[in-house]
């Protein structure tokens, strides 16, 4: 895990992931605009946004929200690093929760109604996707015999073939993490407000830029987990990721925002149901 090659890869990934995440976000906006019959901003737009935000004057409601924003960034970057050095998926998952929890704490620490509601909804979102992500990792363990990414990469065949339903479950988690409809309940893309910006309402300027960069790290991480499902060939991986992301954008444009009650019951019901179905399929196949 800590070989020199892996560490080098890890450092490169920390440096490059924001650029990759920003590009993905830019292509996202371009594609969304195309779906809506518009032109849309240039692909480098997210970078202009972040640079502009970094150049604004600092403004804060209290000390804690800034602390929490930076810790969110550190944890998201560390997740990407740990993923690149091929460590344990479940450990990466728990480090990911540090970021989510501190986002919620930062939002709860401000006496603003929009932040508070956004934080509660963010908690409901975390409640929704966390068990599903654990189940995805557990089923990967069933197939490959290990939680470590290095063992998944060494597995002979693409795990999507034996875990197709789990990929759908991962899709739920991906949609929630990318903050796309119908699960963009606590905060959403710019312009798609409901409770102003939810958890991000009280963040401005450089701190908002930090949160945005952390979000890019998370996008890269979750797409990385999706990529593990076809780890045998680069072409297959790329096709899988492109199809997945296009599917996400399509769903985002077709569906409206859900309520958290519907999200919790529907995603848990379908997610756990699909998980058990896939586990049953695995048992049928192997025994």
């Amino acid at each position: 895990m800590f070989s020199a090659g892996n560490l080098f890869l890890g450092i490169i990934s920390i440096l490059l992931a924001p650029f990759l995440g920003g590009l993905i976000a830019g292509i996202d906006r371009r594609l969304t605009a195309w779906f809506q019959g518009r032109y849309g901003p240039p692909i480098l737009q997210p970078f202009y946004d972040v640079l502009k935000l970094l150049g604004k004057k600092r403004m804060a409601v209290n000390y804690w929200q800034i602390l929490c924003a930076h810790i969110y960034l550190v944890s998201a970057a560390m997740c990407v690093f740990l993923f690149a050095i091929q460590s344990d998926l479940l450990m990466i998952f728990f480090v990911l929760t540090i970021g989510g929890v501190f986002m919620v704490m930062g939002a709860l620490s401000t006496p603003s109604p929009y932040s508070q509601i956004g934080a509660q909804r963010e908690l409901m979102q975390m409640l929704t996707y966390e068990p599903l992500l654990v189940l995805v990792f557990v089923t990967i363990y069933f197939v490959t015999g290990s939680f470590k990414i290095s063992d998944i990469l060494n597995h002979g065949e693409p795990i999507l073939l034996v875990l197709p339903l789990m990929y759908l479950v991962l899709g739920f988690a991906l949609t929630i993490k990318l903050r796309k409809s119908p699960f963009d309940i606590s905060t959403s893309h710019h312009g798609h407000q409901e409770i102003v910006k939810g958890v991000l309402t009280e963040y401005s300027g450089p701190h908002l830029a930090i949160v945005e960069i952390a979000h890019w790290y998370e996008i890269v991480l979750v797409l990385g987990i999706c990529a593990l499902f076809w780890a045998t060939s680069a072409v297959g991986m790329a096709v899988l990721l492109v199809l997945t992301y296009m599917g996400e954008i399509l769903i985002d444009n077709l569906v409206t925002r859900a309520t958290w009650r519907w999200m919790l019951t529907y995603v848990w019901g379908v997610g756990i149901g699909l998980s058990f179905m896939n586990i049953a399929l695995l048992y049928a196949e192997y025994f």
Partner: protein
Amino acid sequence: MNFLKSFVTKSRIKSPWLLHFDCGSCNGCDIEVLACLTPIYDVERFGIINVGNPKHADLLLVTGTVNYRNRPVLENIYEQMPHPKIVVSVGSCGNSGGIFRDAYNVIGGIDKVIPVDIYVPGCPPKPEAIIDGVVAGLSALSEKDGRGVPPVADELGKMSASYSERYENFNTGEEK
């Protein structure tokens, strides 16, 4: 360092996030502003996003006249925007009070309360005019220092700030 600064300046022009505030307008200007966001005009290709709170905004797009009731709200919102920021006043009500100028509750144009950088005339102005106004404001935005102190000699600012002082009668265009 200069390279980075030029990057940031360029980004300010390329990513103006605007906050649209209706100060008591009849909504005619507001409809035109929202029309800009539709696929026909599509201002998002300039990177413009209509954000919901002043803390995320660079540009304050104000319509309608200021009255005693919404003056503190307007000041509040302006204060909550981090520097650098510009204000674009859309429509004659915002520029000088328009036809409601002499009403008992109306204070007048927006520049009576907060500093305005760009005035977009019209009742209501066409979306093309609004876009023109915003784009003209972008260069003003890029010249402002992030620390909120506008440059002393601001050609564009000098020209636009004196708009309401230059014209006696806004509707006839009669100059002083």
